[in-house]
């Protein structure tokens, strides 16, 4: 177990090093420093100003130095200053972390809960009209672009019904819920269709197993079978899917934050795109991959907790 974990961590670390190499190739070898400077300073910037900017942001170092510095700084979380406005990136990321987590964790947890409940319900009524209607609803739901969920949610709930404010953010605990309710609702609604459909397939597959027949023969009720037997045995594919969906969560929070005016890492990313701020973008991509790799390792460990038959070796 321990040696497996160690090997897994080493491989994960190697993957992160690979990501950094890819970022180096894209940002330092492929992109021209002069081009980055012109994008930051404007097309008509004087050549001296561009040379000065390149020197200030350290793009003029020789390639091996650049590579080493890139690795050293990223791995020590020293992200330097923004290419757009020279503000310290690490500080801005740290400030954005709170609002981002406040949005993302509820979307993740509630989304998982909603999709699982819906899928259990539909799978319970498998091969009936309720099942077919549920699946059709899921396919309809996953065919709608997330943009439409955002615009529609904001228009319907924010503007027509006036339940929640249209956008904005206030970290004080008394009102933070009012600002987060709408984005969380939209985020959950956007993901529930495809998730519920996938979970339903897993549940239906599990319901055809022998142990379900045995449980029924013992006199176990249908609802009890679904929750106590089928759900438990389906946890591994469920968990895998939930972790594999973490990158989709990134899509969600980048769009949701920028549209609902939540000052988190997603808004920072959108600002970086609009301001051609490569340094901030590098930091966000690095952190995103790091988180994802860690989450994958944690899932492997969680498998053993969920299913004692799984041996890590």
């Amino acid at each position, binding site marked *: 177990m321990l040696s497996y974990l160690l090997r897994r961590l080493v*491989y994960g670390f190697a993957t992160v090093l690979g990501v950094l190499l890819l970022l180096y190739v894209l940002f330092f070898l492929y992109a021209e420093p002069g081009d980055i400077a012109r994008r930051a300073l404007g097309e008509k910037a004087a050549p001296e100003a561009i040379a000065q900017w390149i020197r200030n942001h350290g793009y003029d170092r020789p390639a091996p130095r650049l590579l080493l510095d890139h690795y050293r700084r990223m791995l020590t979380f020293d992200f330097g200053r923004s290419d757009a406005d020279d503000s310290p990136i690490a500080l801005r990321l740290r400030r954005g972390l709170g609002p981002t987590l406040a949005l993302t964790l509820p979307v993740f947890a509630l989304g998982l809960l909603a999709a699982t409940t819906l899928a259990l319900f539909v799978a319970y009524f498998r091969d009936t009209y309720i099942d077919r209607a549920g699946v059709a609803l899921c396919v309809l739901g996953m065919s709608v672009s997330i943009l439409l969920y955002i615009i529609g949610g904001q228009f319907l709930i924010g503007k027509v019904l006036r339940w929640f404010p249209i956008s904005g953010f206030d970290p004080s605990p008394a009102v933070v819920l009012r600002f987060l309710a709408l984005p969380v609702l939209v985020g959950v609604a956007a993901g529930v269709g495809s998730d519920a459909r996938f979970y339903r397939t897993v549940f239906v597959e599990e319901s055809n197993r022998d142990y379900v027949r045995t449980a029924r023969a013992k006199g176990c009720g249908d609802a009890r079978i679904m929750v106590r037997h089928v759900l438990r045995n389906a946890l591994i594919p469920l968990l895998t899917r939930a972790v594999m969906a973490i990158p989709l969560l990134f899509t969600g929070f980048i769009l949701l934050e920028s549209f609902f005016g939540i000052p988190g890492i997603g808004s920072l990313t959108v600002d970086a795109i609009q301001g051609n701020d490569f340094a901030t973008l590098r930091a966000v991509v690095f952190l995103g991959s790091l988180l994802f790799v860690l989450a994958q390792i944690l899932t492997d460990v969680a498998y053993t907790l969920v299913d004692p038959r799984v041996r890590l070796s």
Partner: protein
Amino acid sequence: MEAQVWVNGIVAGLLLGLALAAFRLRSNRLWRDAGRELWRRRRLALLVVTAFVAVALCDSIAWVGGGDSGGDDTLARHRPRSLLDRVFPAEFRERSYSAPLAGVEFYGGAPLDHPGMHLLGTDILGRDVLHLTLRGARVALLIGGLTSLIAIPLALLVGVSAGYFGGRLDDAVFFLMSVLASIPSLLLLITLVMVLGRGPVQVCIALGVTSWVAFARVLRGETLKLREQDYVQAARTLGVSELGIVWRHILPNLTHLVVIHFVLLFSGLVLAEAVLAWLGLGIDGSWGQMIDQARDELAREPVVWWNLAAASAALFSLILAFNLVGDAVRDILDPRTAAERS
């Protein structure tokens, strides 16, 4: 304008290639039966897809001059106009917003040049919304088609060679795939588009780079299984070369996976482009861009809804049709689900 011309070439070439591939597959009885089964189950969705393809094709055939191509404006006279553009009257535009079928401008009420003729109204610049929406079909097919053309051959090359030859190559490929897969896809997409620059081909390359990995994994796994099959062993004993085995025995047995993934990939790509358009990194003229431009219109008083409604209805119906066709294709072609059904 140059880019426009060869983008048209790409779209026309794609459609021709697809027709050729379909024709070749038809000569095989199994494929013909699968096609019949698909038509029986998903007639409506297939018709919707065909309609979009037809519109895109009409919009890809363009030439300069002919007809009344736009009054005194010399620039307009030298601009190639597609078959689709020629369906609409020349100079078919107003000065600003007008509601569907309205006779006057939406704000102010000045009389229109073409009263009652804009079926879906006009946008802020006075362009006909129906025309813009139909033109989006070509962009959507370009996104799905060109990207698949990049991603699928790449996935086949990498996945099959890693699975078949194994060893060091497999280790290297596996590492490369885990590196690419560990970057959240939207972040990788944004990075690639930012570094490569904005433009239709760059966006398709970026989408291709982010989407081949998942497919290559499936192909690698399937090739590992096929490599151990008896008929492959037999061919090897008979002295067939490695490349010959891959070409004659491995690739034909992967065709169904390619078809399934092509259809399922398509809708995901078009949706991903819509997200990019929202971030200002999309392709000009796509439905995503129309939605992006229309996002503030719902905040106006009175509400301007037709722009958003037209673009999102088009996007939704194409995606829904592709999702439905994709599900049916998977059910029909995948032996695993086929066995479950019977």
